[in-house]
Structure formats: structure tokens, C-alpha cells
């Protein structure tokens, strides 16, 4: 290869080694998606081949030289019905098959571990329940279903992992979820695929799939001290949530123990299952989500808690499995430095209202 310049040669080698026609399959859904993809490619190739072959054949057979006089044909109902029904049938097969895969990608299994993802211009922040924070990276164990609960702080983003064949937009104001089960340890691309402003193309990261042992090791090494639920507990205390949501018989708010996953009857007459989305709504727009039997006195926390704070609160509420835990939080509330000042003028009682509540409830 001495007649090719070494620079070009290296370039070519680099290209050819990196050259791929298909992304790696690294999740359980990937082979299923690819099966459908291959089916569709096959159908398309057959369709295209038929069209191209027919055009070529007709062009040769009926070129003016060979076939100087055209035969006028009106059409053929039989033929037209054929190429209406066959494509329709194939498209419907694709529709059903595709819908099944869509169900699977967006219906997390019950035992999935949950990781929160917050998108903002221009980074991905992942929050693990154990308190590990990551930016533009996500470590997940292989062989375990992982559910991502995502939200955006500003504009639409889209969390895309081509190797897993999953993608979901993180949108402002609402949780979206996606799940996957990684199969092969390795590092894969994470892209933001929804255009989100100047540094859109820099909103990329790595998905690191670890073996379960490595993952445990990683969890232990990268913890930030407090778990997400502990952060939530602190927030719960400092916002004086326990002033109402406590375990006392005269509590003004419903007890939050074991509330996650429970079915609640609301004053509006609806009944809802408590999930992340509901909890978020109930914190930000409480008046529209009042549990039956309680007065609509809860103030809104819109603008006072960041998305990460809400996530921490939700994680805390998720883990409230007994009244005793709430009691513990209530007890620590008085000891927190920021609540001391507020609690003092109220005398015996713990802080009655969060500061934001004052404007609204008293009127």
C-alpha cells in the first residue's frame, strides 16, 4: 500500500473499523424491535424490487422501438384490488406488531428499579434512589429491569439510547417513563434527540451497563452520603409538611404512610391510584387533588421546590411504610436549625404553616 499516503490509509482504516450498518443490541427489547425492523426492511425490499423490476421490464419490452403502438388499457379492477389489499394487509400486520412493541417499551414491569432523570439545557441529570447523582451518564446493572422516570426543567428533551432501541421525551411539567433491561455490559451512547437549543448536540452522554457485582461496587463508591429519600425527608421537614401530614388523630392532612400505590378517593369524586405523577401534581396543585374527608387547606408549592426536590419528596413518600417513620420525621423537624426560628413564636405547637401558605389560607 505504498502508493497510498499513510494519512489517508489511516483515515480509511479508522473508518472501516468503525463502520457499522446496525447498532449493537444491548437490551431485551432490542431483538424484538429488530425483528420487526427486519421484517419491514424485507417487505420494503420486496416491494421496491417488484416496482423496479416491473418498470425495467416494461421499459425494455414496451419501448417505442419494440412496441411502436401502445395498446389502450382502461385498468383492471382485479389488479387494483390486489395492490390495495395486499399492502393494506401488510401495513396492518406492521401496525399490530408495532403496537405490541410500543406497549412493551412503555409498560414497565412491576419489579423494575426506578431511576429519576431530569433533563435541562443542556445536560442529563440522573438521580439514583441511593443518592448517587450523575450528569450525562447513567450506570445501570445488566439483567435487571430499569425504569426511568423523567422530567424536563425547561424545554422538550428526548432521552435516546439507540443500543437499547428505546427513546422517550422528557417534557416540562409532567413525568414520562420508559424502561429497559440491559443485557450486555458495555458503554453505549446516550443522545438528546429532541432539538433543545444551542448546545443540543452536546447533550450527549454514556450509558454504562455493569454486571450486577460491578454495579453494586459502583453504587457503594459513588454515593453522595444521603439517599434520595433522606434528602426528601429533610425537605419534608424543612417545608413543615409534617405539620399537617402527621400521625396525630387531629391531623389536618392525610397520613402519607403507605400512600404510594394506594387508591385514593378525592373530594371531586374521582378515585386515583397514587403514583409519581399524582404526587407531583398533589404537591404543586393540591387544591385539585384533595383526599376525601380533608379540607382544601394545603398551599401550592409551585415555584418553591425544584424538580429534584420534588423527586426527593416523592422518593421519601414512596418509602414511608409506617406511621412510625413519619413520627420520626416529625420529631426531627423541631431539631432542624431552619425550623427552630419559625416554630418558636408558635409556642408549643410545631410550625403550623409553610411560609407560602400564609397568603392564601388566612383569607
Amino acid at each position, binding site marked *: 500500500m505504498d502508493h497510498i499516503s499513510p494519512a489517508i490509509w489511516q483515515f480509511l482504516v479508522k473508518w472501516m473499523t468503525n463502520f457499522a450498518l446496525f447498532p449493537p443490541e444491548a437490551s431485551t427489547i432490542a431483538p424484538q424491535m429488530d425483528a420487526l425492523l427486519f421484517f419491514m426492511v424485507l417487505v420494503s425490499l420486496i416491494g421496491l424490487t417488484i416496482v423496479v423490476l416491473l418498470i425495467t421490464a416494461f421499459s425494455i419490452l414496451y419501448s417505442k422501438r419494440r412496441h411502436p403502438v401502445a395498446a389502450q388499457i382502461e385498468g383492471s379492477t382485479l389488479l387494483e384490488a390486489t395492490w390495495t389489499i395486499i399492502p393494506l394487509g401488510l401495513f396492518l400486520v406492521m401496525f399490530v406488531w408495532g403496537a405490541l412493541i410500543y406497549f412493551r417499551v412503555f409498560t414497565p414491569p412491576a419489579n423494575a428499579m426506578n431511576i429519576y432523570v431530569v433533563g435541562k439545557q443542556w445536560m442529563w441529570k440522573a438521580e439514583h434512589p441511593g443518592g448517587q447523582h450523575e450528569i450525562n451518564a447513567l450506570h445501570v446493572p445488566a439483567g435487571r429491569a430499569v425504569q426511568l422516570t423523567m422530567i424536563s426543567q425547561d424545554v422538550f428533551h428526548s432521552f435516546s439510547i439507540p443500543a437499547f432501541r428505546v427513546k422517550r421525551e422528557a417534557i416540562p411539567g409532567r413525568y414520562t417513563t420508559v424502561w429497559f433491561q440491559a443485557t450486555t455490559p458495555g458503554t453505549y451512547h446516550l443522545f438528546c434527540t429532541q432539538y433543545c437549543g444551542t448546545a443540543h448536540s452536546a447533550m450527549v452522554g454514556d450509558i454504562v451497563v455493569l454486571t450486577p457485582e460491578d454495579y453494586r461496587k459502583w453504587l457503594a463508591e459513588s454515593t453522595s452520603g444521603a439517599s434520595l429519600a433522606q434528602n426528601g425527608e429533610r425537605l419534608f421537614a424543612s417545608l413543615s409538611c409534617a405539620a399537617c401530614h402527621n400521625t396525630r388523630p387531629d391531623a389536618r392532612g392525610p397520613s402519607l404512610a403507605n400512600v404510594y400505590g394506594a387508591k385514593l378517593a378525592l373530594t371531586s369524586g374521582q378515585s386515583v391510584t397514587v403514583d409519581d405523577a399524582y404526587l407531583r401534581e398533589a404537591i404543586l396543585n393540591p*387544591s385539585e387533588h384533595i383526599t376525601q374527608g380533608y379540607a382544601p387547606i394545603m*398551599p401550592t408549592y409551585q415555584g418553591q421546590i425544584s424538580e429534584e426536590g420534588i423527586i426527593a419528596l416523592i422518593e421519601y413518600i414512596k418509602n414511608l411504610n409506617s406511621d412510625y417513620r413519619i413520627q420520626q420525621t416529625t420529631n426531627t423537624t423541631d431539631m432542624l436549625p431552619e425550623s427552630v426560628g419559625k416554630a418558636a413564636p408558635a409556642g408549643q405547637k410545631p410550625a403550623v404553616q409553610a411560609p407560602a401558605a400564609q397568603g392564601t389560607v388566612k383569607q
Partner: protein
Amino acid sequence: MSDNSAIADGVLENAHDEHPAHLRHHFHDVEQQADASNFAMWLFLLTEVMFFGGLFTAYLIYRNWYYPAFVSASHQLSIPLGGFNTLLLITSSFTMAMGVWCAETRRKSGLVLCLILTFILGLGFLGIKSIEYSEKIEKHHVPGFHYSLNSFLDPDSDAAAKAAGDKPLPLDVARHTELYFSLYFAMTGMHALHMIIGIGILGFMIFRASAGAYTGGHITFVENFGLYWHFVDIIWIFLFPLLYLISRH
């Protein structure tokens, strides 16, 4: 489906005999011309329907989501003013219809009178609308930076809310009244814009009608304008119950 082309050659002859001045060169005859512009006007109204369709969609979604806020916010509108405006607009539609009739039957002074009445009624509508708007501006009910929730957090401080017997809304519900006013201003504003354009054209028409332009048999313009004016009326017929009368009990 009107197959004009088939009739066309039949009438071709007499059309050529008279050749009225307003017949454009590319039409066979007056009827084809009138038909075409009438049909074009209807198509234009369809685009208007779809234009307002987007607003109605937004309105229905948010009304569904934030019903209590929408109820309280709607109490800020005055039914007497809105009702009177409805009356004005319906009457103006009637005078416009009569105007078209006058043009059809070639009554020049009748046409001018009807157009002037429509003009005045339209102006009256806008006048009342501006009274309503200025009230909203005073109360800081215009969405945006200066938007104030006072009337909803503390209904006793607000005459309209007090009269309707509103209870104070929690902050998170009250916040959504801003969406109501956004849609209120967007919808009535778009409607008022159509009224202003209509009144402008009316002025032009009064001027032309008094010169006898529409009583010589060529009434397409009056007819088409009538369609436009009635369409604006219809939009209001829907806006009035949707915005003013959400729930008054």
C-alpha cells in the same frame, strides 16, 4: 354539484349581447362570475372556521382541565354588557340581511340605510367591547407580567366576584384564571379584529352604495360581505355562552 360548464354554452349568447360592465373577461357570463365569487367566499369562511377552530380546541381543553378557575374567572365578565353586545350583533346581522335584500330588490336608499345601521351597530359592539376591555385592564386581568390574582384570592375585594358569590380560590386554582383570560382575549380579540375589518369594508360599501353601485344588479360584493358579517355573528353566538355563561348559579 353545479355543473356550470354544461349550462354555460346555453347562456353564452345572451350574456354576450348585453355584456355588463362588471363581467370580467375570463367568465362566460354573470351567473358564473357570481357563482364563483360566492363559492370562493364560502371557502374563505371555511378557512376562518378552522382558524377559530384552533382557539376553540384550546379553550375546550383548558376549560376541561381547570373548570373551577374558569367558572370564577368568567364571573368577572358582565352578562348585561355581553348580552347587550349579543343583541347588537344579532340586530346588525338582521340589518345586514335586510341590506342584502334591498340590494337584491334594487332599493338604493334602503340599502344605504341598512348598511349605515349595521355600521353603527358594529361600532356600538366595539365600543362596549372596549369598555369591557378597559375594565379588565384596570383590574390587571390582562394575562402577562402584570396579571393580578386578587379578585380570585380575595373575592370580597372585587364587586363582580362578590356579586357572583365567589368563594376565595386557593392559589394553585386561582393561577389558572390567567389561562381563561388568555383565551378570552385571544378569542374576543380575534373576533373584534374581524369586526374592525368588517366595519372598514362597511364604510367603503356605504360610500359606494350611495353612488348606486350595488343596486344595478351586480350585488356579489354585498352578498359576500353579508356572508362574512353573519359569520362573525356566528362566532360571537358561540363565544358568548362559552366565555360569559360557564356557570352562573
